[in-house]
């Protein structure tokens, strides 16, 4: 479930203080020839939070992160990172942040340990204690050549190199691709620890379970725009809860209730979905039939996500396609609408 942090910034309503925002972009546009990668992207990440940046491959997540790193120039819009301009203040800002790319390429002739020391010292100097602790926790053999590491181990090198420095902001671009579930758990622990110490993390991902486990707030990106942003709780309020109920007497009149959808009558009860604001009225109606057992499932992140990608999914399902790349291996199966 969501980790709640007592953030000093209560509301979004701008107090204008840029430093409360670790990342703030307005109307970012990035074009590659005729294709538009980012189409007016507004993203805000508050200082001290883990912000999930969700979307399928090709939605513009990596492009956004590379702009925030000053590796790409924007065609329009503005970006602020730790109170500075990511393009002009790149070197100064980079001392205060660490980056884990999703596709880690390393120098084949260097060992993992050398690559970690190198990347951490080029940033702001290596803390040998932190470095050794991270190597230990991620169970990495630092004496192997980078050319002989598997994808998961190359990913670990980048993660260890990033967390071997204590910096203000962690930019994590699909950081756990290729990690096994144990290492995934270690990764989540490390991120939570750092954010608990007041650091900020932007976690781009298409693994919804990971985002659900870690993030305070999430932004969903689609075709280069943010289509939804907020805390998971806020977003749940906007959606429906699934109810499975067993009753003494057969249910009647359910479909006439406001906010109830997809009602299915069973011989000993039924299943339906209900808009969050009508949940109370629906429960009151149920009690008149003698409730024996009731199971309520709040919407998962996948449900929230599919609200924005449902049309693509429908198009894919028509061809017997899978889930449109919207859910990762560990994603929970929610009931879809």
């Amino acid at each position: 479930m969501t980790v709640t942090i007592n953030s000093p910034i209560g509301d979004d309503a701008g107090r204008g203080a840029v430093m409360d925002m670790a990342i703030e972009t307005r109307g970012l546009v990035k074009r590659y020839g005729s294709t538009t990668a980012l189409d007016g992207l507004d993203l805000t990440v508050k200082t001290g939070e883990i912000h999930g940046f969700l979307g399928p491959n090709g939605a513009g997540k990596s492009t956004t992160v590379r702009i925030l790193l000053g590796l790409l120039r924007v065609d329009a819009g503005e970006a602020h990172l730790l109170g500075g301009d990511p393009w002009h203040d790149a070197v100064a800002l980079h001392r205060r942040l660490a980056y884990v790319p999703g596709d880690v390429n390393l120098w084949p002739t260097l060992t993992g340990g050398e690559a970690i020391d190198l990347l951490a010292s080029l940033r702001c100097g290596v803390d040998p204690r932190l470095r050794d602790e991270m190597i230990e926790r991620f169970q990495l053999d630092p004496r192997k050549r980078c050319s002989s590491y598997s994808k998961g181990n190359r990913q670990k090198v980048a993660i260890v190199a990033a967390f071997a420095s204590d910096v203000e902001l962690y930019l994590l671009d699909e950081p756990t691709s290729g990690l096994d579930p144990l290492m995934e758990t270690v990764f989540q622990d490390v991120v939570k620890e750092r954010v608990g110490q007041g650091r900020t993390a932007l976690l781009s991902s298409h693994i919804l379970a990971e985002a659900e486990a870690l993030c305070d707030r999430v932004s969903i990106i689609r075709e280069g725009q943010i289509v939804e942003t907020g805390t998971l709780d806020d977003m749940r309020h906007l959606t429906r809860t699934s109810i499975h109920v067993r009753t003494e007497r057969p249910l009647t009149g359910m479909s006439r209730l406001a906010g109830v959808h997809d009602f299915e009558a069973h011989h000993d009860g039924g299943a339906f979905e209900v808009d969050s604001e009508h949940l109370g009225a629906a429960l009151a109606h149920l009690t008149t039939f003698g409730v024996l057992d009731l199971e309520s499932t709040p919407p998962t992140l996948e449900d929230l996500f599919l609200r924005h990608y449902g049309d693509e999914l429908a198009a894919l399902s028509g061809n017997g396609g899978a889930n449109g790349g919207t859910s990762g291996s560990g994603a929970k199966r929610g009931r879809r609408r």
Partner: protein
Amino acid sequence: MSAWTGTSRLVRLALRRDRIVLPIWLVSICVLILAVVSAETGIYRDEEQRASGAAFGAANIVTRIFDGPASGTSLGAMSIVEGYLVLAIFVALMAGQAVVRHTRLEEETGRAELIGSSVVGRQARLTAALIVGVGASLIVGVGATVVLLAYGLPVGGSIAAGVSFTGVGVAFAAFAAVAAQLAVSQRGANGLVGLALGASFLLRSVGDALGHVAPGGVKLVSSWPSWLSPLGWGQQIRPYGEDHWDVALLFVGLAVVGVGGAFGLAARRDLGAGLLRDRPGPATATPGLLSSMGLAWRLQRTALLAWTVGMIAVGVPFGAVGDSANDFADSAPEFVATLERMYPGASLVDVFAAFMIGFLGVGAAGYTVQALLRMRAEEASGRLEPVLATAVGRRSWLAGHSLITAVGTCVVLGAMGLAATLGYWIASGDLGTGLGATGAGLVQIPAALALGAFVLVAFAFTPRWAPTLAWAGLATCLVVGQLGEMLELPQWALNVSPFTHAPAIPAEPFAALPLFILLVCAAGLAAVAGLRFRRRDLAIAA
């Protein structure tokens, strides 16, 4: 399902992937054969001149090492002797790299796993790679024969020449098949093939150096080490001289042993595994590595060392042969007359040194190009991205690689010049004249740096095209700049090459102004490149 199921499909896949690279190799090699024969026709006008050229080649230790055994005075025989080693090395690289590309590289990238999970036999991949490598060698042999026949050379010798090229290709395809089982990476496997090629070259150069001149003075009988080398076998076929067809059986024998060994190894090992393993390295970095410059040096030092050693190895014999310039003048008067027209009033030894070292200098600038393109390789592979995401600025990263390349260029060209001086000194005992070669090497430095600045501009403005533009630039310098005068190209074309503007020491007096202008141009271009690189997007993936 047999161990060979699916071979023909894999051959088609390999040919589809190689549809650009193999034709380039094949056409280049055939064009080069044509160029060698027509150059020989130009250098030696008649039988008498060829006889003195062959006698020079048989007697001179440097030509024995770099050309191989002289095999008579016919135009065909002399052309093959002159061009064989370079051509055979190209054929060996083409065939060997093709086999590695379709075996070890496939395993390294994991593509073999995908293929292996489908209806494909255990030995199908190796078989398909060998069919492609051996097939390309056969086509090169046929192409060589056709080109030589078209030039009007005798049928028997032309076929023998084709066989000598095909044989080397087949031999190194077999070496590559074994190397692909031993090494765990494409780099490692190609390195092993390169090692076998180097050993072959060394063995036959020792054998030819220790050989003796046959009666008649135009033919060299090689000593036994030449017979241990596949490159040597190709030469011992002696096309147009004697056409020893039975030597080709040695290639067949080696191919059978090599391919059999490779299949044996492949059947006994796991997918992705090799027989040579990496040793564990240091767990922490030394302080020297921990800066942008330190990383650049780590990435660049091997290439610098290899080029320095290589240019010394080539420079010494080039210097030593300078002492024989006057003997050479008797064997190729036309060529020497052209050289003397280029530098009127200079001594023949100086003219020869200026021309040879000038030529070597452009070759050594290959180091400059290769070292600077390392930056593009870093960017394209995605390794630059995490570096620039640290507190390393683009300017200092670019400056680090550029500085190392500039200093490295001075080292490579200086070492080449000194080596040539040393070679001349050993051969003639005259150090004073030999020092001209050092000067000839040093004046190339500003020109090489100007070429380097062009590479920087290409990298900054058109990153994806930088390798193509950079190598095309070097080729232009080599062809237009160094050979342009002989090809009688107009002066404006010659002026395109920065090397044209360096004084031809020791045949011409030293002149500081052109060198200064070259340095200013290099600095200006480098500054423009630096400004542009700071403003452009990173271009990841080629």
